[in-house]
């Protein structure tokens, strides 16, 4: 049955080359932990992707309950945490995933750095990877405000003060993020929500696509 569906589609759009590009390749021995246990360092990138998938899925479910509004944001999170079946687990996955993804990114960056895997021809992919790191930090920063509890509010206040202190563009940046030159309130929450849920994920998906296409194109770096 599956084969028939596959053949039906393949006959019309020729998906076999696509499939070959994604899945049909050999994994060399030096990255395979089954042969050398120390090759587990090559798992960090894949685990980063895995946690990112967890973040995307848990985040999608969180928005089913979350209300980005200063009156209801905290109440909706509290409700999710205390009343909704498994709400605590889903929010816990998103909360801890945000930390774990930073840890995994950090380890993956160190692996690539110390192995010198960013050298020619992989310079572009390294830069895309560093941009993914920045986007992830931005996601952590904006997501931290969303529960609208005291730690979120005051941490954001400090962040915006730091942004404001930047010469020349500081005040404009603060206004862009907070929605007002002075007030940190309703506008700030909706802007952080929009950045966290739409802008940065869009950038992240684009960068991740570029990252993976380049890995398939260039192959993994050879043994040291």
């Amino acid at each position, binding site marked *: 049955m599956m084969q028939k569906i596959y053949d039906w589609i393949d006959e019309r759009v020729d998906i076999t080359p696509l499939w070959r590009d994604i899945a049909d390749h050999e*994994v060399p021995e030096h990255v*395979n932990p089954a042969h050398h246990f120390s090759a587990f360092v090559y798992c960090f990138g894949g685990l980063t992707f895995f946690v990112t998938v967890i973040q995307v899925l848990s985040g999608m479910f969180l928005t089913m309950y979350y209300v980005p509004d200063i009156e209801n944001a905290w109440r909706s999170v509290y409700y999710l945490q205390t009343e909704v079946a498994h709400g605590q687990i889903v929010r816990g996955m998103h909360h801890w995933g945000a930390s774990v993804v930073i840890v995994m990114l950090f380890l993956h960056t160190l692996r690539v*750095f110390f192995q010198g895997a960013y050298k020619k021809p992989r310079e572009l992919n390294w830069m895309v990877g560093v941009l993914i790191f920045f986007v992830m930090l931005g996601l952590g920063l904006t997501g931290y405000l969303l529960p609208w509890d005291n730690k979120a509010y005051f941490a954001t206040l400090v962040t915006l003060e730091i942004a404001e202190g930047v010469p020349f563009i500081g005040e404009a940046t603060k206004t862009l993020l907070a929605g007002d030159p002075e007030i940190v309130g309703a506008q700030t929450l909706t802007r952080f929500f929009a950045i966290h849920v739409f802008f940065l994920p869009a950038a992240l998906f684009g960068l991740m696509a570029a990252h993976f296409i380049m890995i398939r194109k260039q192959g993994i770096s050879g043994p040291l």
Partner: protein
Amino acid sequence: MKKGKGMQFVGDSRITADKKKFIPKDYSEYPGKTEAFWPNFLLKEWLVGAVFLVGFLCLTIAHPAPLEGPADPTDAAYLPLPDWYFLFLYQLLKYQFAGGDFFVLGAIVIPGLAFGGLFLAPFLDKGSNRRPVKRPITTSLMILGVISVFWLTYEAAAHVDWEAKAAANKPIPPGSIQVDTESDGYAVYEANSCIQCHGGNLEGASGPSLIGIDYSVDEIKDIAVNGIGDMPAGQFDGTEEELQQLAEFIVAENEDH
């Protein structure tokens, strides 16, 4: 590889006339045994992912995501802290050479150089050597950076009493506390100045909330008379019997909520 406008195509724009491509070294040229990605290697990755997921779920079940009370901009005593992975940047601004008058140095120049250097690493370290020991400057800069980040994070986190911070900021929905205003203890609470700082429903005002505290009757009696932290001594002005009623009332309300 020939690129750009000078590229020649054989009628079909997908196929270049000049078939010279950058082709990475074939994996079969690497030493040792290769393994098919699909399905052999992917199955192993799947298993690693499953083990990882079990550990991750254990973490989320053992430690529910923290939530503090709703944002209260009037809470001037609140100690603001960013999430842990920003603590090192935050800590840097506390040093004299990187904060205050030198804010631009600590907020932009130092992090800018560090992260800019990371971003441009392939162009700063252009040699063909990949082994860390063969490129000592690059390696030592990275080790220095990692040590600095760990040290700054430790310095920022070590001086915070995280448990006291969490205990003082329990999530209590606004308007959800309804204490027994008919009790004798509440009359004492009202008659003394407690209500001014701790609120009509023990929810806290300029003073902390009295809901969610972990004190015995005797300890509360002692605090009411002798004060604690920012609370001065001599706030309680009544008989021993009233003091007992007050303390029992506060403990009873804590047991209810």
